[in-house]
């Protein structure tokens, strides 16, 4: 069965160094272990504490949005010249986080990377929840979210149609397609596992709910045959999609003529940044998850090591992007671009810029060291640092460019208000709430794919 002559990256020799699954597992034991988290394990006190905190923060978000609907966007720190502020900073941050989920589930699937198996399910869930959080911001940033349907093309009595030449409309299509495809990808992957939960749950109500969701999946070879085609196609479609989404998001900036935004490096550098922050978030979730639910045999040090390496690599691409923003300003000699560089380094928001360099470029260089990549606590802190760094990046892009426009009379300052923070922290609460619910009611690791992995690894060991 092995391809002769060519040493595969997942050959037994390589795999022994970074195992993707602990030794001694069978189809039955992986099924037992993962489904037990959902079905038989009692809900712990810690889960309730965590859920309550997260849910309270989500409540704060609801209040903040409610107040926004009553009073309007004046409760935020935005004003001319800073029309975008937190809403867009947070939108770009969240949508970027989602990208790692699709990268893991689609691109690593196409590249036949076995280590993706135990992390793809919750990474995809993370994508969905991040896209949900992201979607809130442009919606409420419209000021009248109940009018948001204007952006979709529909035959209105006013005879109006959307302006398809606008990146903001591209964004509507890119993000809604991304959300839909991610949901389908996630759900298709879940179908066999829902069937497992249906067959193994003892409670009648659980049986009915999982049964309805599994749609009568019975593992028929004819079904698997088409299922595998559909899954492979989805992976192939999601790969260009994920690259296009952050490209389109970067067009929101790059199509404009604002200094610091109007550059061709934005699409690749946004995509790399998205994957960078997304992998950081996957680590932020994976590290507590494997600890709390004792999944160290499934999410091994090999996984953490690989994710740290992806972070390092994408972080370097991002650093390259920062460097070229500077280089192009110098090289073009455009005085507005040069002035923007000067403002980033020494302007009123320069502390944010230097913090961004520290978080995104300098600190992650520690990941070159094996010892650091294998120190779970340091890795966890590092993932949070990168998340903060990527948020700062979007803040720097939005705020510095908008406060330092072409003429000094158009300059301004931006300070987020309490409601800005309440909405932002509230979406973090919503994200964590959804993650808590997800690990409680659905298998956080794909059971069917783990069985496949057991079959493959036991075959090779023979």
């Amino acid at each position: 069965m092995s391809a002769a002559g060519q040493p595969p990256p997942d050959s037994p020799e390589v795999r022994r160094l970074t195992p993707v699954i602990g030794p001694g597992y069978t189809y039955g034991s992986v099924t037992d272990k993962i489904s037990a988290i959902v079905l038989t394990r009692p809900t712990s006190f810690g889960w309730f504490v965590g859920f309550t905190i997260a849910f309270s923060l989500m409540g704060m978000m609801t209040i903040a949005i409610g107040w926004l609907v009553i009073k309007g966007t004046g409760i935020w720190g935005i004003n001319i010249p800073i029309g975008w502020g937190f809403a867009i900073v947070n939108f770009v941050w969240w949508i970027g986080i989602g990208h790692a989920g699709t990268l893991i589930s689609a691109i690593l699937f196409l590249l036949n990377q076995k280590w993706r198996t135990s992390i793809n399910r919750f990474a995809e869930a993370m994508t969905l929840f991040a896209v949900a959080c992201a979607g809130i911001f442009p919606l409420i940033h419209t000021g009248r979210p109940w009018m948001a349907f204007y952006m979709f093309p529909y035959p209105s009595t006013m005879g109006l149609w959307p302006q398809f030449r606008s990146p903001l409309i591209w964004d509507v299509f890119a993000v809604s397609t991304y959300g839909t495809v991610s949901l389908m990808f996630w759900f298709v992957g879940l179908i066999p596992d829902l069937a497992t939960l249906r067959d193994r749950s003892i409670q009648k109500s659980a049986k009915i709910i999982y049964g309805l969701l599994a749609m009568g999946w019975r593992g028929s070879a004819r079904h698997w045959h088409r299922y595998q085609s559909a899954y492979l196609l989805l992976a192939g479609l999601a790969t260009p999609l994920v690259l296009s989404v952050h490209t389109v998001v970067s067009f929101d900036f790059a199509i404009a003529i604002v200094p610091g935004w109007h550059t061709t490096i934005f699409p690749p550098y946004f995509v790399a940044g998205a994957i960078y922050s997304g992998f950081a978030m996957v680590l932020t979730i994976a590290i507590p998850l494997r600890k709390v639910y004792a999944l160290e045999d499934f999410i091994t040090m090999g996984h953490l090591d690989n994710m740290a390496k992806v972070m390092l690599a994408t972080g370097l691409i991002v650093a390259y992007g920062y460097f070229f923003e500077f280089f192009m300003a110098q090289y073009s000699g455009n005085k507005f671009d040069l002035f923007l560089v000067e403002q980033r380094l020494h302007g009123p928001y320069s502390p944010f810029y230097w913090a961004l360099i520290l978080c995104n470029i300098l600190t992650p260089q520690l990941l070159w060291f094996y010892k650091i990549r294998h120190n779970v606590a340091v890795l966890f802190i590092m993932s949070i640092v990168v998340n903060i760094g990527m948020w700062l990046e979007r803040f720097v892009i939005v705020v510095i460019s908008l406060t330092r426009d072409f003429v000094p009379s158009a300059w301004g300052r931006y300070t987020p208000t309490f409601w800005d923070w309440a909405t932002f922290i509230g979406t973090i609460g919503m994200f964590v709430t959804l993650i808590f619910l997800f690990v409680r009611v659905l298998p956080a690791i794909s059971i069917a794919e783990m069985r496949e992995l057991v079959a493959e690894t036991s075959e090779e060991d023979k």
Partner: protein
Amino acid sequence: MQHRSHLYGVMGEFGNAQELIHAVEKIRVAGYRYVNAYSPFPVEGLSEALGLKRNMVPMICLLGGLTGGLGGFLFQYWVAAIAYPQNIAGRPLNSWPAFIPVTFELTILGASLAAVLGMLALNKLPQPHHPVFNVPRFTHASSDRFFVCIESKDPKFQVTECARLLEEVHAHHITEVPHD
């Protein structure tokens, strides 16, 4: 047509994928056509053993993608050039490069929806009940066991003969699968 029977088929159980493939091959060599296998994960080589042909999902996906892409582009053209033309400094109405991002997204959307819905439709899912669920041990088909079912609509179907054949290929727990 085939004779109706109160039985859906005869089912045998296996402990691993190799045994399953071996059994399916043997049963097909014995001349049975209506054979199906059930496994907790996609087994490599099983489709070939069952003689499954290439499926229609990729074609449906392609059609979905073409519909999404062409439809998306033509729609934008219609909106921008015919239904709601805006003369902005005399620039061309059919500014096709600006329509590419949405065309691309709709291509992906159409293809993905077609792949998933096509897969479900061809698999006749959702289907809440199926005779194989009448076998009590079939709950293991979603965790650690592999099943083969010789269906009663096979012209060669005969209960004792099928049971004997399943025994010959070392199946465990050979049972009849009732229709209801």
